[in-house]
């Protein structure tokens, strides 16, 4: 059957997480992909190489991840929604130009299908070890947005959300998935094109002679003129003023720019942040988890309830900006917080920062396999026994 709209494969699918991510990108309007093969993200590139030409988009396999990240910034500034996909080692290489994207406020999406690290680590095994790197990986002060999917359906949905947030706030947005979600096949429901919410970058409403590329109004996000539109913009990774011109020895310009590129996210955090909660209303023990670990956590919470323990789950969908207020409020209502994650302590530090005295119990997992529900259950039971 010929599909009316090849960009949106409306219907029910049994689909690989990595493929669902590629489909989400195309549905969101992504028409440029630059990447470099890396396990376990390669299937995204493969799907994009096959699918983008069908919708008139460009796929290019670059020489490395430094180039991939640079190319998507160039494509985005030329007016096309752009994405790359990688895993930890490639994400490390991308940090340089992630900083450039943050500094030049270039909308772009970076998918990181996390595997075990550090270094080459365990290429085919899952991990959640790049969460802090996603926030702090490039030098200097900046903010990003990062979302964490827990299913192939969310690989589709949250990739679209990444594009929308990236366009709305002119920031690099990350889909921080893990190998299991990337390589999992599950039911993915793709809605009709008109049911998908698409956000596009704000364009200037003034003439080129009046336009200041980095002058923002109250929302702190400047309208974006792209190359070829007659605005003659100068874009630089140097500290720049509202004209976009380098100002490398002004304290005020540096301060104003850094505050704005951070505050446009910080001040809109409540609008950006999404979480899901399960059985938290009367919970005395709250599990805080994201990605694949949240699926094991949900199972553990249900089993704890069966045993009469009032446990609940807060699933973080938005990792960055961090759900500070939500966790601070939760910490006032529960006796303890439990954080299982596939690393040796990353998001747990943020939870501890917001828990303000409420005990936080950490359950690390170093890779190889996800948390088993009974492992989380055992910790919940122990926490319960300790009162």
């Amino acid at each position, binding site marked *: 059957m010929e599909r009316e709209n090849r960009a949106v494969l409306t219907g029910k699918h049994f689909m690989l997480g990595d493929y669902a991510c590629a489909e989400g990108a195309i549905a969101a309007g992504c028409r440029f992909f630059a990447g470099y093969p890396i396990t376990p993200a390669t299937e995204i590139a493969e799907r994009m190489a096959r699918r983008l030409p069908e919708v008139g988009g460009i796929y290019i396999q670059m020489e490395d991840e430094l180039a991939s990240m640079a190319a998507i910034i160039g494509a985005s500034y030329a007016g096309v929604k752009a994405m790359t996909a990688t895993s930890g080692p490639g994400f490390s290489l991308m940090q340089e130009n992630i900083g450039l994207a943050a500094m030049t406020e270039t909308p772009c999406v970076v998918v990181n299908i996390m595997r075990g690290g550090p270094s080459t680590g365990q290429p085919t095994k899952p991990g959640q070890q790049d969460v802090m790197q996603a926030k702090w990986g490039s030098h200097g002060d900046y903010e990003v947005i990062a979302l964490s999917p827990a299913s192939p359906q969310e690989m589709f949905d949250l990739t679209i959300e990444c594009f929308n947030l990236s366009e709305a706030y002119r920031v690099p947005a990350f889909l921080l998935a893990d190998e299991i979600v990337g390589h999992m096949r599950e039911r993915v429901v793709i809605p009709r094109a008109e049911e998908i919410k698409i956000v596009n970058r704000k364009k200037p409403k003034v003439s080129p002679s009046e336009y200041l590329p980095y002058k923002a109004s109250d929302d702190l996000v400047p309208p974006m003129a792209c190359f070829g539109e007659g605005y003659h913009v100068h874009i*630089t990774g140097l500290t720049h003023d509202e004209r976009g011109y380098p100002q490398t020895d002004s304290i005020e310009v540096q301060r104003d720019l850094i505050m704005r590129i951070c505050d446009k996210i910080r001040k809109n955090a409540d609008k950006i942040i999404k979480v899901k909660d399960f059985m938290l209303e009367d919970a005395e023990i709250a599990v805080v988890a994201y990605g694949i670990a949240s699926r094991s956590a949900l199972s553990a919470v249900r089993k704890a309830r069966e045993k009469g323990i009032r446990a609940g789950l807060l699933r973080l969908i938005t990792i960055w900006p961090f759900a500070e207020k939500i966790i601070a409020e939760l910490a006032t209502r529960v006796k303890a917080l439990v954080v299982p994650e596939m690393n040796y302590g990353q998001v747990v530090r943020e939870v501890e920062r917001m828990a303000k005295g409420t005990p936080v119990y950490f359950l690390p997992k170093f890779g190889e396999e996800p948390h088993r529900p009974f492992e989380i259950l055992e910790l919940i039971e122990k926490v319960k026994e300790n009162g």
Partner: protein
Amino acid sequence: MGETQELVVHPLAKYLRMDRIPHIWCEGCGNGIILNCFIRALDELKIDLDKLVVVSGIGCMGRAAGYLNCDSFHTTHGRAIALATGIKLANPELKVVVLSGDGDLFAIGGNHFIHAARRNIDITVICANNFNYGMTGGQHGPTTPLDARTTTTPYGNIEHPFNLVHLAAAAGAVYVARWTALHVRRLTKSMEKALQKKGFTFIEVISPCPEIYGRYNKLGTALDMMKMYREISEIKHGCDPAKAEVSPKRIVVGEFVDLEKPTFEESVMQQIADVKKRISKGGI
């Protein structure tokens, strides 16, 4: 008070962001000459400034992008070509030019250069080669001649330099030329040719850095360096790029490569058209 005199505007001022002048370059630097040749080439070809994007990396020549009155991107160190690739592919209507230096393009950015040349991305790369890292105060780089003195080769350079035109030709560039900052008319014509030609075009410009490289190597003033270029340069069009010597004793200049092959953009657009045709016939 007398009558207000009408301000005389230079006929090429429209190509520059005059509110950013004076530039940061040292007296005697070749970068201004290269930029001058470039805007004269733009003027001669009547390039639409609304459809021109100049991309540069980091370094002295990297600042050139910011002086031009067109869309421009001053990128991270070494990444100008990779970013330019994204711009060109996303909007093939744009004329995309990379202006940068030898350290930026061939040390930290060397990998991007050879791969863009191999793919035949339709961009023009103009390299100001001053044989050292000027912006950071004169360290040796991938083009520094053997035995040359720099701040990081205080006992003489022991590394073998790249021959940039040989590298470009071997990597697949469709147009390769070398000039010095002395050859302003030939350089301008060469830029016009490169800008008109489809595919990956490359021009190396040997450029004086009298304040730093020249000082360390006792090459005299900027004028002395220009005189030296006149004495040791030799025009040899069509010379085998492998034999196009560049050394303190001899600089072979001219056009070395000028050939035709499909660009990446042409090929990818053809492929997209083919895929769409197959879809319409129910083949995919």
